[in-house]
């Protein structure tokens, strides 16, 4: 690992076929860092959903636009104890995110779509959006040995 805790940086294009490539790299990275199988699946799902949103909403489904992803191993303090977490930052130069739309929708209403943000929030321990120098920045954090998610084994 680099001094900054940097593990990996990716630059990909907004093509749906690249999602599978990122998922495979990330699943392996998370496993190497010591996350459980269920945690690995959760991290992979969250990042896949976030990239899907960037491709569909940020870039309006257009291929060939750049997306940057960086993966860092960071120190965190929780309940007075030192711990470690995987920090993932996704950046795109797509349409400005309308934060009002991000909150998701009530799940009681069974219909297609509108699940992505819900998955991201359930799977990660922290989710932050930022607009910076004309770019959208999404920061996702997953604690090692974090609270167990509802989704189970």
């Amino acid at each position: 690992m680099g001094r900054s805790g940097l593990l990996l940086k990716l630059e990909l294009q907004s093509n749906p076929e690249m999602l599978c490539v990122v998922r495979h790299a990330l699943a392996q990275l998370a496993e190497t860092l010591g996350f459980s199988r269920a945690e690995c699946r959760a991290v992979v799902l969250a990042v896949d959903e976030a990239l899907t949103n960037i491709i569909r909403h940020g870039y309006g489904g257009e291929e060939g636009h750049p997306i940057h992803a960086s993966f860092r191993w960071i120190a965190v303090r929780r309940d007075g104890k030192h711990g470690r977490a995987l920090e993932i930052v996704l950046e795109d130069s797509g349409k400005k995110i309308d934060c009002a739309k991000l909150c998701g929708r009530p799940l009681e209403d069974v219909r297609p779509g509108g699940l992505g943000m819900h998955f991201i929030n359930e799977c990660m321990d922290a989710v932050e959006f930022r607009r910076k120098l004309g770019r959208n920045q999404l920061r996702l954090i997953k604690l090692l040995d974090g609270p167990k998610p509802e989704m189970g084994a």
Partner: protein
Amino acid sequence: MQISARRLDKTTIFDVTGDVDLATSPELRKALLHELRDARIPRVILNLKAVRYMDSSGVASLVEGLKVSRDSGAKLILYGLTPSVREVLQLSKLLKIFEIYENEEQAISP
């Protein structure tokens, strides 16, 4: 992802393999809508045993299939849920909405 169809009497079984995501879910959606809406098959069974990964776009395709099946009085049945599929359906609070079985035998003759 790959889908292959087995057509029995009044039932189609789709064997789905691989990852169902933004790149591949349109194909799953198309297969479901064709069978349920166009061919008006009364029962469509999805074998998900070999689905390594499914995300919200896959779930959206399943939900759309379910809607169409209800509209046309048909049945959409799932079996062979892997951890990935089970988890996204659970996160979507849809485990109880779908008709789900352990294996093909139970799915065919419930």
